[in-house]
């Protein structure tokens, strides 16, 4: 086959090194050498909308747009609005730091893999544990809340599933359905979820905008806490959190470095704008109709059908969030299994649907167990799962702080630091640390020992995991940091140098 060259009309001038490299590439035939370690998941399949759906579903804005105004009832109006503004600002800074990674690599391990690239193995393991706590805990909480909404709606249809056995059966059934959907590929489900979420949001925004400013707001369910504003900040941050979950789908996205980055940057801004709308509605008294319809308050003139529609929307929002958390946690575990940190069953990929079904089953079992425990605790009239919620929030803040620090070190290592990112990362890590300190302060002053102990365990988990791996699987530590690295097919033939990486496989290296 005669070698082909760039056409004379090409914008690449003849005689340049680029022209020569392109001309040479047609006569060079290399066997495939470098392959992405994550190619089993199926590269370049998901569109930008599907990636956005993962983040939006994790964030569950429809549910939060009702939850946040309810939380604001316990605080002063100005304090509530400022808390949400501050949360949005901090999240935007953290998103900017995360986007520095998503612009440069696609990784199924999300923040965990990002930290391996910038802050070493111990911190990466801490983030790995923190993200596992976050996504499994978040999945359990949203599954539990979604399951409660299912039970409520079943009740409206005349089916009583409120008993211990009935509610446990509902939660198990919901887990099974979610597992089936995510194993069969979350693409269509995500699009359906996005449509339902948007319909719910349209209904909620419509109710907020058309609400009567003189409507009576429902009374807060519990007496105002002295730390209500701080708890609201944590709730708002947690409601905004999830924007980073798009990163887990990077290797499967069509243009991952563009679509994931766009999603990471825009999700907190869009959700933040919606939360501010909710905050404004509370401050102007317009949220009365929405909250009364949802809580079934005594305020006259609220159509019961509207309340059912709202509960249906919120149920979908919670369950979609659980599904997205399943997806994110399974990708994290799959990455760790590829690195040989977790055992090989977590590495199984479904032959047809290309989903990490081994990790998904493990996540489903774990999450369902936690969910059933929450369900049992509720039936024994125990306190609501505040400790679990605060632990999940705290673990997330730990991960965020470490990823902002990793961002600084990563960019310095590859020589691509800019002053703007340095300032953003410094501010974000400072704000995150302050928030973590506040969370511990609230817990300690509230005589809660569970949350500080759990967060302390998360914080030291990296050191422990690395020490255990050194003894049991020393090879695994060399393998950490698996991402969707460039394949031979991505490279202009004859323009790359190959060498063996830590996993003993061919990869692209600097020319010796």
């Amino acid at each position, binding site marked *: 086959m005669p070698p082909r060259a760039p056409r004379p009309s090409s*914008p690449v001038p003849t005689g340049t090194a680029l022209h020569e490299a392109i001309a040479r590439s047609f006569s*060079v035939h290399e066997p495939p050498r470098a392959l992405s370690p994550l190619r089993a998941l199926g590269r370049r399949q998901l569109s930008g909308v599907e990636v956005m759906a993962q983040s939006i579903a994790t964030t569950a804005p429809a549910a939060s747009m009702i939850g946040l105004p309810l939380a604001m009832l316990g605080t002063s109006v100005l304090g509530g609005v400022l808390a949400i503004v501050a949360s949005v600002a901090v999240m935007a800074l953290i998103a900017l730091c995360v986007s520095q990674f998503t612009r440069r690599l696609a990784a199924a391990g999300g923040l965990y893999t990002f930290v391996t690239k910038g802050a070493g193995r111990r911190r990466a393991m801490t983030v790995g544990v923190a993200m596992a706590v976050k996504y499994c805990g978040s999945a359990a909480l949203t599954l539990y809340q979604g399951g409660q909404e299912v039970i409520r709606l079943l009740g409206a249809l005349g089916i009583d599933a409120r008993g211990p056995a009935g509610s446990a059966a509902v939660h198990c059934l919901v887990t099974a359905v979610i597992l089936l959907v995510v194993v069969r590929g979350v693409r269509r489900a995500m699009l359906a979820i996005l449509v339902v979420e948007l319909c719910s949001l349209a209904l909620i925004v419509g109710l907020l905008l058309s609400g009567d400013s003189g409507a009576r707001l429902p009374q807060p369910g519990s007496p105002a806490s002295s730390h209500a504003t701080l708890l609201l900040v944590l709730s708002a941050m947690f409601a905004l959190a999830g924007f980073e979950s798009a990163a887990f789908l990077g290797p499967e996205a069509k243009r991952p470095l563009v679509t994931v980055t766009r999603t990471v940057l825009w999700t907190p801004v869009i959700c933040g704008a919606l939360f501010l709308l909710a905050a404004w509605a509370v401050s102007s008294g317009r949220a009365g109709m929405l909250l009364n319809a949802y809580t079934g308050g005594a305020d006259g003139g609220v159509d019961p059908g509207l309340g059912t529609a709202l509960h249906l929307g919120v149920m979908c929002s919670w369950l979609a969030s659980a599904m997205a958390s399943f997806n994110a946690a399974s990708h994290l575990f799959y990455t760790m299994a590829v690195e040989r940190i977790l055992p090989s069953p977590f590495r199984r990929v479904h032959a047809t649907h290309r989903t990490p079904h081994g990790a998904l089953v493990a996540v489903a079992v774990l999450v369902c167990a936690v969910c059933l425990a929450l369900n049992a605790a509720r039936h024994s009239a125990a306190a609501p799962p505040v400790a679990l919620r605060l632990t999940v929030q705290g673990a997330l803040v730990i991960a965020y702080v470490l990823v902002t620090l990793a961002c600084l070190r990563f960019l310095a290592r590859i020589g691509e630091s800019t002053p703007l990112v340095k300032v953003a990362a410094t501010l974000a890590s400072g704000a995150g640390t302050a928030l973590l300190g506040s969370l511990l302060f609230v817990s300690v002053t509230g005589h809660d020992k569970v949350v500080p102990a759990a967060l302390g365990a998360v914080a030291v988990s990296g050191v422990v995991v690395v020490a255990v791996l050194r003894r049991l699987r020393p090879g695994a530590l060399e393998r950490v940091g698996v991402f969707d690295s460039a394949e031979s097919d991505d*490279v202009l033939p004859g323009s790359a140098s190959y060498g063996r990486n830590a996993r003993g496989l061919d990869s692209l290296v600097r020319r010796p």
Partner: protein
Amino acid sequence: MTAHPVQRALAILEAVARLGPGATARQIAVFTATPASTAYRLLNLLVADGYLVRIEDLSGFALGRRTRELAGAEPEEESYESVLTELRGRVRFGIHLAVFDGTGIRLASRDPDHAPAGEGTLTGHPHASAVGKIALAFHPALFADRSLPGVTHRTITSPDVLSAELARVRQREIATEVEESRIGRCAVAVPVRDAHHVVCGALTALGGSAGLRVDDTDLADLLHTYAARLAGVFGPVATGRRTETCG
């Protein structure tokens, strides 16, 4: 002087071509006299669209395959992956491509829908696998003085029997394996040749004993057809190692 973004992008690609694989962002910014933040932004865009790729440690860049499009070159010839994907869509067995390099046998492309179990046996005990028999038949020098351990009770462990088997492989250009590297698994493999007609790899179908018949002539014909197409894709193996393995 303010350069047009397209000019800057072309200058960056030219810089990577001149500096060689692994050029860092800072080197490229200096080489093209572009402000650092502008260079970083353009580099990320060029990587996102496939005109550049990042090396494994993420600190440097190499030219991406899409630069051909930028140069107005003719459409891509078919790649080995597109050939394999097409074949994988036509059969219900696992289709894998092995190449023979200086270190022995290496699986260069694994079927993502049918991950090969016991990969170490496939490549480490050539007398027990169909792929290994192709390597032994066409490159006996590579595997001289090797013992013939029994991986399963059906593995050929007699040198004479193996010699006769390899002679048949050379003659028919097809190798088979019936539960020799793993109980319950059968395989058929055919040689893949480069542009110099030297055997440099093997294309294999792996399946369960109940599903894959090693005497299936349709399957053998299909593998031979696609192996011939792979030969056009591979061309001469442009590494120094070819001479020591395939020569």
